[in-house]
């Protein structure tokens, strides 16, 4: 955990980008509700998913950058024990981000109810996007492409979020019933598969390709 804190500290200014986004998400949701006489909850749900999920990969990507691009990166693999795997770090970062999202959803709960289903759907989307970034970063040995891919995916789908694209991880409509979690189950399974594939690469391929 101490290592993770130092890695986050190493991000300097970049550490605060997700905080800015989460605060911005709060303001945008408030503005959307005010502008629609507190009725357009579906639009709010879309805004929340785009802002919150879209920036979930920020910390993981910038931490992975040190492992993939920094001079002397192999040192990080020489000293670590077998159990200190990058996948665990990704999961920890997801947990840390989810804690921040909890705070944001406490605020949302004062604006509209219920938020629990939307919250679950959102943190599962975050997990999926982190798993995808982890997988792509190890596959391509690059962190820039996964970051661009993440934003392209999130924002492109946000433009067409109301369509029925099967590749969309986002949920549609008013988030007031457990039915919106149907997509989330598949997204969760996909996240698990991506983590597994990324882990296999980390264990078998990555160490021999430095």
């Amino acid at each position, binding site marked *: 955990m101490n*290592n993770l804190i130092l*890695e986050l500290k190493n991000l300097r200014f970049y550490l605060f980008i997700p905080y800015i986004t989460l605060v911005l998400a709060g303001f945008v949701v408030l503005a959307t509700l005010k502008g629609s006489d507190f009725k357009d909850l579906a639009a709010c749900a879309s805004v929340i998913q785009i802002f919150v999920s879209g920036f979930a990969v920020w910390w993981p990507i910038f931490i992975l950058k*040190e492992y993939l691009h*920094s001079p*002397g990166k192999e040192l*990080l693999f*020489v*000293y670590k*024990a077998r159990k200190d795997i990058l996948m665990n770090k990704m999961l920890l970062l997801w947990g840390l981000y989810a804690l921040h999202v909890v705070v944001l959803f406490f605020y949302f709960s004062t604006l509209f109810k219920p938020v629990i289903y939307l919250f679950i759907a959102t943190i599962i989307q975050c997990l999926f996007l982190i798993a995808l970034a982890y997988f792509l970063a190890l596959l391509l040995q690059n962190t820039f492409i996964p970051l661009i891919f993440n934003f392209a995916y999130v924002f492109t789908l946000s433009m067409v979020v109301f369509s029925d694209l099967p590749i969309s991880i986002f949920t549609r409509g008013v988030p007031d019933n457990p039915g919106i979690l149907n997509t989330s189950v598949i997204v969760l399974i996909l996240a698990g598969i991506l983590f597994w594939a990324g882990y296999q690469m980390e264990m078998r391929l990555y*160490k021999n390709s430095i």
Partner: protein
Amino acid sequence: MLTVKNLSKSYGRKKVLHSIDLEFDNHVYGLLGANGAGKTTLIRCMTGLYEPQQGEILYHSQPIKKSPAFLHDLGYLPQAFGMFQELTLYEMMEYICCLKKIDKSQCNNEIEHALSSVNLEDKIHERIKTLSGGMVRRAGIAQAILGFSKVIFLDEPTAGLDPGERARFKNTINTIKNDRMILISTHIVEDVDACCQNVIVIEEGRVLFQGTCEQLKQAATQKVYQIKAEDSDNIIGEKFILKVSEVEGEIYHRVLAQGKQNYPYEKNPTLEDGYMCLVKGIA
């Protein structure tokens, strides 16, 4: 202490290391070889970073992968070092302490001790990105010796350093070398001469020589000649010009030659002479 047995490593179809056998004890070893000879690959295999296709590496008779002692005793300075640019030197060392599983209560003392060994104690709160290239290399050595590492691998530690920093590096090695096995990979023969008792010469993935520096120098005995440039053509048999120099307006060649020549040979061949004898096949 550390044994490399029949080690082979390939990248795809290209074989980079061919059945390497080496023995290491508590001494400073120089790993000499041209660029692309396989030095870095050998070191990466020895640190456990690369999986060899064949052979094994034993630490106190136990494979390094199964040896917790090896992980504890290991110190490594990669060819390029400069991660965590935004952290202070202390924080970077703290990070390495965590990786090396050094007890938190001992971290502070260990860091101070390691940094004072490389004369960087006054830079402890400066960010890595503000340090000079030489200081970053010294910081790299400090992290390698952190926690009193007993097995230290330094990959091209003097590459890109100015003469002052190189001299400082050699002093550092001579200060920390007691009770440790240190392997320094380099293609700069003077560095090996200045800090190592033992030398390993590697060429195209094969070990050409393992022994003391004196033994390597002896490989050039009666084979090195300092002659005028115009006499160079009179050398009988295979020859190799090691150095061209000017002495009092006259051009001289330092020539490596096989067989007895009609000129007086150099009585004190250098380590570089011995190394060139080996790699040029003049033995």
